[in-house]
């Protein structure tokens, strides 16, 4: 079997695709790339379909060795990429010979980056997805994060050495997405769930105070710290959680729920952050100041429509490039 051999997994690296959809009612979380757009970009650059699995890298430190010739691409946080000690551009399809070393180095901004391989990582699919959910122990390779010595299988496809070069507009895109948030990151949300049951002063604390991302962020949730929010609600009946929910446990420090969240929760949920802002939050780092802003569903629809249109346009440009790479 050929593929990518893990020399050093770095901080945390997992196999992810667009997630395990349709099983929330069975208590099975979606998982999937926190920044799905960056994974899709990486796939499109290689002529892959969007649903193929890649490697999600948290911050840095992943070192891999190729056991066959491959085409790869790296998108997301602006990390450094070295192939056999030579720095290579990200947001580009790259040809890599067998027995090469791929090293993902550090970055000053952003958290998640995605390494895609032509044809995709081909670990077994579980309930229609290859996404790893470490807590549940399934997906990826044996349900775990990458370990030294793992061999990740890749699709057995012919890989031409000639790869077209993308003009550097791709770099501009990802700088926009993960630029240093020296300012406050605004998180727009649609009020809902328990929002109508909390007091006016609770809503004011939520939307008028500034919070910062605490150091305990992971793929389950991003904890925010700041003035405690008193929802006045206790003993709720467990109910569905949402991707991007603002959940407030008894200590008053809100959590924004991400891809690996538990499907049910017993704490108040005050609203759902719109997808583009959720991904920006996911890419941000501990200490980042954030402010929550309630918006109407109509406004949210307009923002999300424009954002989706922008993403689709960008992906189409990558697709035409990726297909010439076939």
């Amino acid at each position, binding site marked *: 079997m050929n593929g990518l051999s893990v020399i050093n997994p770095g901080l945390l690296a997992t196999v992810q695709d667009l997630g395990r959809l349709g099983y*929330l009612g069975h208590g*099975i979380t979606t998982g999937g790339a926190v920044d799905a757009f960056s994974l899709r970009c990486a796939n499109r650059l290689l002529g892959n379909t969007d649903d193929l699995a890649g490697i999600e890298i948290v911050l840095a430190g992943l070192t891999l060795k190729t056991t066959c010739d491959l085409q790869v691409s790296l998108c997301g946080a602006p990390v450094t990429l070295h192939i056999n000690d030579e720095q290579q551009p990200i947001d580009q399809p790259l040809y890599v010979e067998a027995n090469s070393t791929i090293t993902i180095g550090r970055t000053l901004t952003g958290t998640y980056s995605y390494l895609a391989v032509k044809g995709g990582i081909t670990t077994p699919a579980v309930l229609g997805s290859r996404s790893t959910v470490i807590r549940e122990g399934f997906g990826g390779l044996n349900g775990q994060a990458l370990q030294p010595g793992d061999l990740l299988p890749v699709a057995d496809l012919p890989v031409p050495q000639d790869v077209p070069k993308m003009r550097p507009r791709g770099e501009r895109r990802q700088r926009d997405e993960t630029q240093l948030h020296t300012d406050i990151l605004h998180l727009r949300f649609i009020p*809902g769930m328990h929002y109508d049951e909390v007091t006016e002063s609770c809503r004011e604390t939520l939307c008028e105070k500034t919070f910062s991302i605490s150091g305990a962020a992971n793929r389950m949730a991003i904890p925010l710290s700041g003035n405690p929010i008193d929802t006045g609600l206790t003993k709720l009946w467990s*109910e*569905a959680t949402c991707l991007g929910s603002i959940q407030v446990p008894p200590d008053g420090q809100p959590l924004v729920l991400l891809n690996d969240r538990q499907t*049910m929760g017993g704490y108040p949920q005050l609203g759902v952050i719109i997808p583009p802002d959720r991904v920006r939050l996911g890419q941000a780092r501990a200490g980042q100041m954030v402010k929550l802003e309630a918006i109407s569903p109509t406004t949210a629809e307009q923002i999300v429509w424009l954002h989706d249109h922008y993403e689709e346009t960008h992906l189409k440009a990558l697709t035409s490039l990726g297909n010439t790479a076939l």
Partner: protein
Amino acid sequence: MHWSYAGLTGIRLSYDGAPSASVTASLLDLRDRLTKQYPKGLTDCVLGYRTLTLFFNPTELSREALLAAIGDLDNIVGSQQCAGRAVELPVWYAEESGQDLAVVAEHSGLSVQAVIELHSGNQYTAFATGFSPGFCYLGNISEQLDMPRLQTPRRAVPAGSVAIADRQTAVYPAVSPGGWHLLGRCPLPLFDLEQSPPGLIAVGDQVSFKPITRDEFLSLGGTL
């Protein structure tokens, strides 16, 4: 019953009264009717104790159309009976398998044997599934067994543990942290990815517990 947004692609229906088997039955009926009507448009339907959260694909189904299909919110909860399957789970109740039996007995002023009879003598409705794959919230247990959660949750509860908290009971499908009181162990796998559906219990099922001996536990595949 009222509805609220659950993000741009979700609707949360919530019953204002207390959860009950008939509320769950009503929400299940609605879920089944809607999933039949919109097999592609509805991506996920999640029942809580008294909520039904519907997630939809906006390119297939609009929020307005979904709300229209749901119809009059005041007519959703009626006198429906739970039509779920009857599921009997064997449980080895013992100090060795349920380390909180004595504490629960003391708290309720009953003998250990009476606690076991009280817990196994009832049929429970599966109100919700979640927390971890295959974990089902079952209720309601006898008021006499109503106990708050542990002050400090255990870091690792063995797979198959049968536990209680407040008026609820559940079986832990896999080793996980847990703050409920442990009464015994069930030898059957509650979650198996090879099965379809992977969970042994589904929302709406009527679950009962049957006391078994240590030997029966082992012969049914239970591990110590």
